[in-house]
């Protein structure tokens, strides 16, 4: 995949989102980000299984950093799947083959290590429907990470803003 300045990288996008929504969390962003991409899905959700030896703390603190990382990663996955799908549709093919290829690609995407280093070339522009869909994905991911609906929308809007900016930059080039 060709790499340009307009490619999407999850950590960079998430950092910008955190800077916009909760700048006080920026000092710990790098540490959190490294652990996030090195860990499994359950750990990313911030809900470790209680070991027998921990303090009895079951209250979850909602943090913008993990929500932003989660929402950005979800948007990344969504866009990647749409791009692959679009490419395949343009090449023609039956519906069942499309579904099969989509699943195989999803499987391999999950297998790939170091998602932090993965990048995605953004389309020059997003349609209104696409942006709405992206926003919905981001809100859903942020809410699942214990964000309040207001904060989740704020994160989603920040992501959309960054995407729109990147798209414009890409078109300008």
């Amino acid at each position, binding site marked *: 995949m060709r790499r340009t300045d307009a490619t999407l990288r999850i950590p960079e996008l998430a950092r910008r989102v955190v800077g916009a929504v909760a700048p006080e969390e920026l*000092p*710990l962003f790098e*540490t*959190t980000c*490294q*652990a*996030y991409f*090195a*860990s499994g899905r359950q*750990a*990313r959700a*911030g*809900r*470790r299984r*209680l*070991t*027998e*030896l*921990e*303090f*009895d*703390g*079951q*209250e*979850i*603190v*909602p*943090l913008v950093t*993990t929500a932003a990382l989660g929402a950005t990663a979800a948007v990344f996955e969504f866009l990647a799947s749409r791009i692959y799908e679009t490419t395949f549709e343009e090449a023609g093919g039956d519906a069942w083959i499309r579904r099969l290829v989509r699943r195989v690609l999803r499987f391999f995407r999950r297998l790939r290590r170091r998602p932090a280093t993965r990048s995605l070339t953004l389309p020059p522009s997003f349609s209104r429907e696409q942006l709405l869909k992206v926003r919905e994905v981001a809100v859903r991911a942020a809410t699942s990470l*214990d964000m309040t609906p207001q904060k989740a929308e704020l994160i989603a809007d920040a992501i959309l803003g960054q995407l729109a900016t990147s798209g414009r930059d890409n078109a300008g080039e």
Partner: protein
Amino acid sequence: MNRAAGGREPPRSNPFVLGADTWYRFGLLVAAVVGITPLLTAPRGYAIVPGALASKNDEEACIQRLLQGMPDVTGKALVDRLETMGRYVVETCHPHVSAGMGLYTIAMIAAVFVLALAIYWWIPRRLIRRRRLTPLPPPSALPEVHRQLDELTRITGVGEARFLFDPLDRRVTGLAFGRVGRRHIVLSRGLVHSATTDPARFRAVMLHELAHVRNGDIDPTYLTIAVWRSWVILVLVPAFASAIVSQLGGVVWRLVVTALLVRMVRDATLRSREHYADARAARWGTPEILHRALSGRALPRRFARRWGWGNHPEAEHRRAALTDPSRVIAVGFGDGLALGTTTVYSLTSLTLIAGWLSPDPPGEWVHLAPFTALLACALTFGIFRVVLAAGLTGRPTSLGPLGIGLGTGFVLGTFVTPGFGVRPSDVPLSGDGGMPSMPPALWLVWAGLMVAGALLTVQWITDLLAAWLPYAASRRTPLPTVLGCAAVTAVVLTAWLAFALDLPSSVNMTARMVFPDVPQVLVFLGVLIVEPAYGLLAGLTVFVVLLWAAPFAATARWVRAGPPRTWVSLTPLPETARLAAPRPIPARGVQAGLIAACGVTFGLLTVYLLVFLAVPPTRRSDELATLLVWSGMAAGVLAQILAVVLAVTVTRTLRLPHAMLAATLANLPAGAGAAVAMSLASCATGPCVSPLAITDLRLMTFLYPSGLVVSLLVAMLLILRGPQVRGMADLRAGG
């Protein structure tokens, strides 16, 4: 915190007296694993060690032959029966000895602990790698967190811990872990966040984690986990697999019970450390902030946790323990059950290994001694804390569940261990292989006696420690006093357990081999009362004397109790405070004993006089002489029973020591009465012999311990049936 009138805080018992409980509980787990491993690994050993199975089969076949070809002793005299059976059993079978099996078992135990050490060493590294823990970011990134941590480490004096950071864990939680010399405390991302948003909560959690380091419970905790995992891998899973493959249904449920027991001990260790860490943290900070930190969203209530099991205590239990520290030191049914079962398992295993290694192993009490010493330490240390708390707060002790659990553990262990069938001598005990076991009703009676005995033992230990409490509280440390009480308790436990645990086997063997023509109930009663007279005279005498001498020694002149020391209470006591204890008053026991003895002797002599006046000399016969001798002997036993009844009736505290003192004293004049009776009997058949010339020691030594056993049983029934005396209600720290 509630304050007493006058603005002074009420006394709060110090749970750290004699150290935190976690190491003792870990010791119990080790004892359980050591005790259980030989029983579970032996079947594999027989398959591996050359010649072991053949040797075992030989002895089993020999026992089968012996049982089938028993000589008929019906109608013979008692001495003939005993001689015949003794010669028959001893001369027929050679014991099954296999040094290879002994070494294999010892090697398996060693393997469990070597693997456990490896796991203990490996756990911290795995935790750091798996959870992606990083060093805590520098003060430039987290200034508030570092400021608070500096303050807390200064307050607590814990400087050796290294702080780690779990950036993805959004819960407000912490974790102390590590190995010797490398302690780590993990701060979750949520906890770091709370340092600025909720500093009190941050402080509470960190104090709790630092308390783990200060209490020194990290090593026993992780060793506990390591020993459990190692035991499951090397012992439990192979034993289950072997039992399932061999379709041994009777073994599977015993394995389940055994696994639950070890798991229970493990969980108790892990729960206990949390309570002690809370108590330590509460001493450093105010308990209110911990209380609030524990008031958040509680852990899901699992089945095990709801019933007081599980490896993590309920938040509400922890809050209650913060309010009332005596909950931290509570010992209950589960503790007793684990202690009792572990003792029996360990005894069985040690006997097994000794039998494999030596053709002539030492007696059962030698095998029992190490475990009763451990059991005595566990009981006295735990009960001392409870007695101290009762002395400070004036509340009654409630150690009944501990006694019931202990007795139940003895019974459970006895039922579970022989089922593994690893030693040939289990055959007669378990009722397999041609020899029917005791009837269920007698098993129930025996189980009831075991529970009652354990209950009475716990009550006696409580009385003993309560009597010595003022003295112990005035010393710099209570350890020597408590260890002294533990030593006495160990002797008492060894004496009665050596006899009681072997009772079903003795009864069954005696009933089937020596008295096949006598109802088994009578054999049971006979063995219960008479066997101590044959085998345990010295032991029984020491046992009975210790029962009253140990608590009453607290009133001796050289025992001078001063004001209690500061370690007694978490809150300062008034300078004039004294810890009161139920005063042991031996005079009451002495009075009861003498009154009973004199009463019985006087009554007996009166009856003799009337008999001699009523029966003319020409009609006096041998039958009359025999009647006189036996009535004189029975009077000794009767005097002891009467003394016990009197002593138990007139005393409110220390009733067992009073009863045993009275019984001992009552026997002495009763012995004189018996000598007079024999003197009179000689007059009935010929020339009179002086009572001083009559020294039938054999008969005396037979009746003396039998009378003591009956007295003990009567005392047990009276004390356990009587109203519950608020033994500790009188204890109060007075100002």
